[in-house]
């Protein structure tokens, strides 16, 4: 069925994705249903051939021209206020160990090049996947002997933005083979499960209805390739955790706890789903 719905990224297992396509006519009108499918297939083929909405694409493409312009000019991209902070923190000696990120890693723009493309990633020692933000916190606690930064704090977003920037323009390359597979499967199950009072799954909107509009906004495919990002609706910088929790509140579901196993598994799935898209951190989105 994925072939009929080009908005679903290729390779996605669509089993259980009820409602991801518009309902077809009932079984009593077999001829009409066949003709409808034929027209639909022809239309989708035509649209796919002109590249409309069919391919995997970044939320950047769905944003308006002014929003894109804001991201394109580093001097006007508010995300760089956080990058600036992250860059300063990279060299700050802290904690009982009196150590900065730079003391172990060296220059951020050298050592962190490409790093963000591989997160979330499976951590053999912890036996579970970790996000980039969790990795930063882990380093602070274990190697700098410093307290963790509060979630969604400017400092943590700043460090994540600074590290993420060092992968800007590089393709996302999240790996899910080997021990990470079961966590990936959990994440994918969360992505395709209906939830909340509105009883919607992520997949229904971001696969099935991506490119259409909700209110005045174009529904994006929901790729996390620009996080942490500056969101105009937030009037500030935020993490993928925050965005997912907002979405869940939007369908009137109890949001997963910040930094929870569910969020991490879901982010592993989303990261893999965005593979080959270019990192855009710090992105600007409406």
């Amino acid at each position, binding site marked *: 069925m994925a072939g009929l719905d080009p908005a679903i990224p290729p390779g996605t297992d669509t089993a259980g994705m009820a409602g991801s396509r518009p309902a077809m006519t009932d079984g009593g009108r077999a001829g009409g249903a066949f003709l409808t499918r034929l027209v639909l297939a022809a239309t989708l083929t035509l649209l796919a051939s002109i590249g409309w909405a069919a391919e995997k694409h970044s939320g950047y493409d769905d*944003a*308006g*021209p*002014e*929003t894109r*312009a*804001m991201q394109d000019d580093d001097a006007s991209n508010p995300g760089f206020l956080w990058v600036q902070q992250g860059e300063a923190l990279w060299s700050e000696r802290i904690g009982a160990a009196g150590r900065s990120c730079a003391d172990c890693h060296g220059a951020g723009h050298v050592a962190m090049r490409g790093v963000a493309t591989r997160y979330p990633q499976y951590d053999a020692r912890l036996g579970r996947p970790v996000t980039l933000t969790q990795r930063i916190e882990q380093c602070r606690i274990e190697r700098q002997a410093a307290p963790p930064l509060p979630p969604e704090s400017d400092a943590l977003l700043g460090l994540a933005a600074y590290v993420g920037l060092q992968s800007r323009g590089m393709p996302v390359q999240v790996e899910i083979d080997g021990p990470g597979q079961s966590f990936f499967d959990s994440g994918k199950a969360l992505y395709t499960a209906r939830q909340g009072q509105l009883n919607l799954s992520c997949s229904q909107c971001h696969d099935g209805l991506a490119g259409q*509009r*909700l*209110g*005045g*906004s174009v*529904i994006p495919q929901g790729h996390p390739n620009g996080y942490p990002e500056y969101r*105009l*609706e*937030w*009037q500030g910088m935020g993490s993928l955790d925050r965005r997912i929790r*907002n*979405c869940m*509140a*939007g369908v009137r579901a109890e949001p997963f706890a910040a930094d929870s196993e569910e969020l991490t598994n879901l982010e592993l799935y989303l990261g893999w789903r965005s593979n080959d898209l270019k990192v855009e951190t710090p992105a600007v989105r*409406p």
Partner: protein
Amino acid sequence: MLLPLRPGPARATPAQVAALIAELVGEAELHDGRVKLDLPVMVENGNAVAMTVSVDAPVSQVRSIDVFAEGNPLPHVLRLQFGPRAGAARIATRIRLATSQTVIAVAKLADGSCWRDSVDLLVTLAACID
């Protein structure tokens, strides 16, 4: 979660803005032109709307630029005055717009003349609040 409700009057009115402009312009006549207000007609998010205001005149001749938003609770957006080290009579910034409305720019020149430009825009609300 922050609620977008207002304690005071919901919106300014075109009449209020007209009065502010009349006060600004004084005895001079207000002409259309020479000042250019650049704003997108379709606004994706009213929290941050890119705006450029420029005046077709040497910057040394430009006394001030004022921008008003008729549909905002507080209509005065910006006042600008240029000094001797200004390179051009132009500024770009981002503004907040509460709703679909008309935004007006008024420039006063050294010769006492006053010029005006306006843009009518559509502001859509975000589908997902927060």
